[in-house]
């Protein structure tokens, strides 16, 4: 959210009506949806001065018409935002990340043989890409490094897209899990609908298939969590309570996916229930500290996850 602060090079910014003739409804709608300005101004007065509207009343009439139309259109578009596009984006993100890292290693190895100060990793590749190459070989090595930088930029752009799309596709899931984990869960399940139809026990171990099958063939204990391990609620809970945390989180994530798929409305109670449940689970660690040595996890296991 740093873009709300400084970043003044975009200029003072113009109103939504600027440049558009008052008849071009499509352009005005697009400006409302996509435009921006650093600071608000007296738009009604400026619009009258600019001849966009005859009076403030006339301005507000036009704004009403344009804002209702623009918002209706954007809502429709966003509601159509489709889970499969999100799946493509998250898979492309992973490919870019993996490829960028692999290629960065190669580029660093090569650059290290040509330049004294070549650093490893993507940042190292960025530095190499800035160099002025001398001769054929340096040219190739620098060029390779700049591909790495491009791939890393593409990865960052994809992350932003995921950040923006996930809340539209699955508002509750994205709020609960964060956009990236929400996208990954949807991708692992193959879509929002398949995810909504999975039992919470499956959601809990999505992404831990290897461990799950090792367990099913009797070679290992059952995995406590899959990709949801990346969630703060699981990762930052002490190890002996992580199973409970993962089970509670998976239960609510499953419900969130179902609400998102079947109704699409934000449901605040879901988020509250999870926050309360997590508070209870984490309180165990506190209790454990108070009456030390009381035989570990004696807390009755009354999870009853949803």
């Amino acid at each position, binding site marked *: 959210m740093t873009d709300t602060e400084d970043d003044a090079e975009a200029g003072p910014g113009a109103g939504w009506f600027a440049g558009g003739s008052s008849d071009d409804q499509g352009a005005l709608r697009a400006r409302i949806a996509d435009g921006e*300005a650093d600071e608000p*101004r007296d738009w009604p007065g400026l619009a009258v001065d600019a001849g966009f509207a005859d009076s403030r009343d006339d301005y507000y009439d036009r704004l*009403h018409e344009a804002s209702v139309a623009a*918002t209706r259109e954007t809502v429709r578009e966003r509601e159509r935002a489709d889970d499969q596009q999100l799946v493509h984006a998250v898979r492309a993100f992973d490919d870019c990340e993996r490829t960028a890292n692999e290629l960065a290693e190669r580029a660093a190895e090569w650059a290290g043989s040509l330049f004294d100060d070549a650093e490893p990793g993507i940042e190292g590749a960025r530095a190499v890409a800035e160099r002025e190459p001398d001769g054929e070989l340096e040219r190739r090595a620098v060029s390779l490094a700049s591909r790495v930088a491009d791939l890393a930029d593409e990865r960052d752009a994809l992350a932003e897209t995921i950040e923006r799309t996930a809340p539209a596709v699955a508002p509750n899931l994205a709020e609960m899990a964060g956009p990236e984990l929400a996208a990954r869960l949807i991708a692992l399940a193959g879509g929002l609908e398949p995810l909504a139809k999975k039992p919470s026990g499956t959601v809990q171990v999505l992404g831990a298939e290897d461990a799950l099958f090792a367990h099913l063939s009797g070679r290992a204990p059952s995995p406590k969590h899959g990709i949801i391990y990346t969630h703060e609620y699981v990762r930052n809970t002490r190890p002996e309570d992580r199973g409970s945390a993962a089970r509670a989180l998976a239960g609510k994530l499953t419900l969130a996916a179902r609400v998102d798929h079947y109704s699409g409305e934000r449901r605040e109670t879901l988020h509250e229930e999870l926050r309360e449940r997590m508070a209870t689970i984490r309180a165990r660690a506190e209790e454990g500290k108070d009456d030390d040595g009381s035989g570990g996890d004696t807390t009755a296991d009354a999870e009853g996850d949803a």
Partner: protein
Amino acid sequence: MSDSGLPAGVERREIDGETRLATRGPPVYGEPTADGWRAWDPERSKLGGMFELGFETGLSGGETVLYLGAASGTTVSHVADFAGPTYAVEFAPRPARDLVEAAEPRERLFPLLKDARTPRRYAHVVERDVDAIVQDVATRGQAEVAVRNARFLADDGQLLLAIKARSEDVTEDPETVFEGALDRLREAYEILETQRLDRFHEDHLGVVATPR
């Protein structure tokens, strides 16, 4: 309680045999109506609750308002009924669909599908020096949202804010959460009045503030 604290256009009316807060306008969510007046349920609306509890909102009717967290338009439709030009910001597409329906018959209600945390994205539409900001967003960092949006508010304007403790941190005591939020708020605002809304909304604090 006298009705002197209520803005013009908000009245206590007899609806379905009960005296209830009401505004005049087209119905939005199946609320009870009588003679063109629509009941304003304080249990479904933080601002409605603040009126019921007698907050000095500084609103007298006809103001220009920026409403943050408009959701399906329940409360903002009542605001548009008694206020002047009203900008309604909502981030989630699904409720915004209903918001658009509520806005359509209200000529001075402007729905915007925007994130209240990034004012840049609507500063090209929302005018400066609005008379009041009403905020009811249920995300973490509610005070931060109010601070970032202070740029829209006139120097003598009012911020009417409902802070939901559980959106910030369920594990903390609500009072602690409110204190933290008020501290952040004081960086841009002078706090005029605070009161718990628990009678209508559990673990919510109503706040009236004005720019420093």
